[in-house]
């Protein structure tokens, strides 16, 4: 399985912002008939993930509309979150013909490595309106410690 590591910190968020700016500039300069895409294509893995760092926890979100929860599997180990599942294709009834078929179906698996270890016991996941939200608290041992200096 392909592992994707996320990096945090100001230089990365600045680079992400720059990438978006360049992408919108590119699409603004390209005639509409041209195929447009990102200048920096990232992973081509489903589902696309957004990760935020709340300090005490990481929040991973993914847009997976129309999933059945029993077809979704989440695993957490040390600093890695693994997502696995299947999005079933719609049932075909009698005499039905498709005009358009854009909604993706099939199996997916993806894992993501977070900057710090997480507390697997405290991980919570919710699924609402087709959006999966996984909250992963940072392991206590991996949290930065404040050390008080005593006057000698």
């Amino acid at each position, binding site marked *: 399985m392909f592992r994707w590591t*996320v990096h945090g910190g100001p230089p990365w968020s600045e680079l992400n912002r720059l990438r978006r700016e360049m992408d919108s500039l590119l699409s603004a300069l390209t005639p509409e008939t041209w195929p447009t895409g990102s200048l920096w294509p990232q992973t*081509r893995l489903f589902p696309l993930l957004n990760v935020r760092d709340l300090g005490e926890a990481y929040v991973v979100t993914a847009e997976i509309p129309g999933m059945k929860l029993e077809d979704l599997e989440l695993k957490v180990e040390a600093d890695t979150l693994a997502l696995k599942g299947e999005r079933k294709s719609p049932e075909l009834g009698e005499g039905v013909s498709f005009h358009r078929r*854009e909604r993706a179906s*099939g199996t997916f698996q993806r894992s993501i490595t977070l900057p710090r270890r997480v507390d697997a016991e405290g991980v919570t996941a919710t699924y609402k309106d*087709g959006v999966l939200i996984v909250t992963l608290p940072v392991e206590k041992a991996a949290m930065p410690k404040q050390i008080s200096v005593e006057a000698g």
Partner: protein
Amino acid sequence: MAEQEIQVHEKMQVNPPEGEFTREGPYFTPAVDICENEKELILKVDMPGVNGKNVEIDLRDGVLSIVGKVAEAAPEGQELLTEYRTGNYFRSFRITDVVDQEKITASMTDGVLTLVLPKSHKAVPRKIPIATT
């Protein structure tokens, strides 16, 4: 095709053909499945992050338009990885089949809008209410 891997579908931003939207922010094209049988036309629209209460469906002059609005939550913390953007959805279709507008039904489950358009012979403009599940 049981073991087929899902391909990434990147969201495409759209500009509406007639006029801008009053609400700021990007609008994306949702992925749609359209199928048809003898009696009806069925549309399935992927709009993750949209609640059934925030969907507007309009059918007039043979144009079906779908607008889905996402509940914008203030982003917390620092972004580490942003592979997808969030925003509202817009898509419209020209319906050539004669549809019984009185009997159109819409429902929304887990970010997927299902629209059933029964075929008929008359066509009168009408707003369509959404049933939330």
